[in-house]
């Protein structure tokens, strides 16, 4: 469980104001909002890149302030994938396990399993710079998944993909989510993606959380005019058609 209690942070000209949010254990939670409203910043707060200026973040009841990123058991898939450019795909995926005392045959096996599952087994020797966006995205997913995180943060994971690949990966992701049973916080500005994946949706506009609710509920009953006009950009029918 993740709880934001009145969290505020100021970064340059941008500020996130008084965020209150509760994400349940095992939930697939989608943060929806236009560009530049602080979606990535929220994920980075959860993962521990920043400390809130005010308010507190709780992860499973514990004040996150005292937990460094490396002990939060959080997997992070960045918007731009953030693969390590000097390591090949295998070493990117194996990076986390190799830090510990896990014997390398076991790591090898786990990398292979994940790579098979994500369809990137043929890319293990390649370097990130030579991969397509979709391939990088899968490597980034594998790198996060291999740690068996309790919380998975996905920052616009399908941003760079064509609609068909996106739909396919969405389905795969949902399958993996059900298999691994972690909490997923997923950021997007794509309504159909949100409709397809989310248990609950949080709408964030201009650094504030405006509405949180079940995915149908949010689309059917926007809380106020601002939410409505943001969601109104796309009619309801198309969201649940797929």
């Amino acid at each position: 469980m993740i709880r934001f209690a009145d969290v505020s942070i100021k970064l340059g000209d941008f500020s996130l104001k008084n965020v209150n949010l509760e994400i349940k254990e095992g939930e697939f939670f989608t943060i929806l909002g236009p560009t530049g409203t602080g979606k990535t910043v929220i994920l980075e707060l959860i993962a521990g890149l920043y400390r809130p200026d005010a308010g507190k973040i709780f992860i499973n009841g514990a004040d996150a302030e005292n937990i460094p990123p490396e002990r939060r058991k959080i997997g992070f898939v960045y918007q731009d994938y953030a693969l390590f450019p000097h390591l090949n795909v295998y070493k990117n995926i194996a990076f986390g396990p190799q830090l510990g005392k896990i014997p390398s045959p076991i790591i090898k096996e786990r990398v292979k399993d994940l790579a098979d599952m994500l369809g990137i087994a043929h890319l293990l020797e390649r370097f990130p710079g030579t991969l397509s966006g979709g391939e990088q995205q899968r490597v980034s997913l594998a790198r996060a998944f291999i740690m068996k995180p309790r919380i998975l943060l996905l920052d616009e994971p399908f941003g760079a993909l064509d609609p068909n690949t996106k739909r396919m990966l969405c389905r795969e992701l949902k399958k993996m989510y059900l298999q691994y049973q972690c909490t997923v916080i997923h950021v997007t500005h794509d309504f159909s993606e949100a409709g397809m994946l989310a248990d609950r949706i949080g709408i964030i506009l201009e650094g504030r959380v405006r509405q949180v609710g079940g995915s149908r509920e949010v689309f059917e009953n926007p809380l106020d005019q601002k939410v409505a006009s943001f969601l109104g950009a796309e009619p309801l029918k198309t969201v649940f058609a797929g």
Partner: protein
Amino acid sequence: MKKNWWQDKFNLFMVAVAFFTFLFMTAAVGTLMIKGLPQIGKALAAPEIQFAIRLSLYTSLISTAFCIVIAIPVAYVLARVDIPMKSLFNTLLDLPLALPPVVSGLCLLIIFGTTAFGAWLEGIGLPFVFTVKGIIMAQIFVNIPFMIRVMKSTILSVNPRLEFIARTLGCTPAQAFWKITLPLSKNGIIAGIVTTWARALGEFGAALMLAGATRFRTETLPISLFLNMSTGDLEGAMAAANLLIIISIISLYIFNKFGGDFIGGTRGV
């Protein structure tokens, strides 16, 4: 039709200035090389030049090693850590870069030669005044701001999110630095080492002030050039100069090869 550059008076003028600048620089360096290079074999056989080469290599390698070891942490702080008064530190650290080397050398001479601190150092076996250790100290003092600058811009060019991702995968801050930031700074480190080394080889003013110019004692290549000049031995001076030119050209080449393309993204936090 598009006009050629020589048909436009303005461009013609600019190109002419560029051309003569280039011509003069090439001519100046070229003349020295043409006159000096034929004698370089003979010069290399002279024990004095051999001593100077050895001393230059010895001092410059040691000072470069110190520079890199000191510059990396300092650059990391300037690039990544939020400390108060950072811009003041930036300016202070750049100061030796702006000072004439003889002034830097005098600063060092005063602190090591006239203070209790200097006397204490001498007592524990670290005399810097008129010694080889002084040459190394002078090279470090003059070059370290340069190395810090190169390392700072290198570290800044590494996407800090990569370090952060490494943290989420289980790295401590130190591990993230060793496994991500440092390897991604490789090209900058190489470029920095090569240029610092070349500058150390050529260091004259500060070393002269602190370590003096004594034949077969504190005689590096540039000091040798100076000593030979002052005794009217033009050939010996030109031999030392040509060695320095060759080293400079090689280092320039290596710097251009590695300095230009630092890997790693630039999206800054």
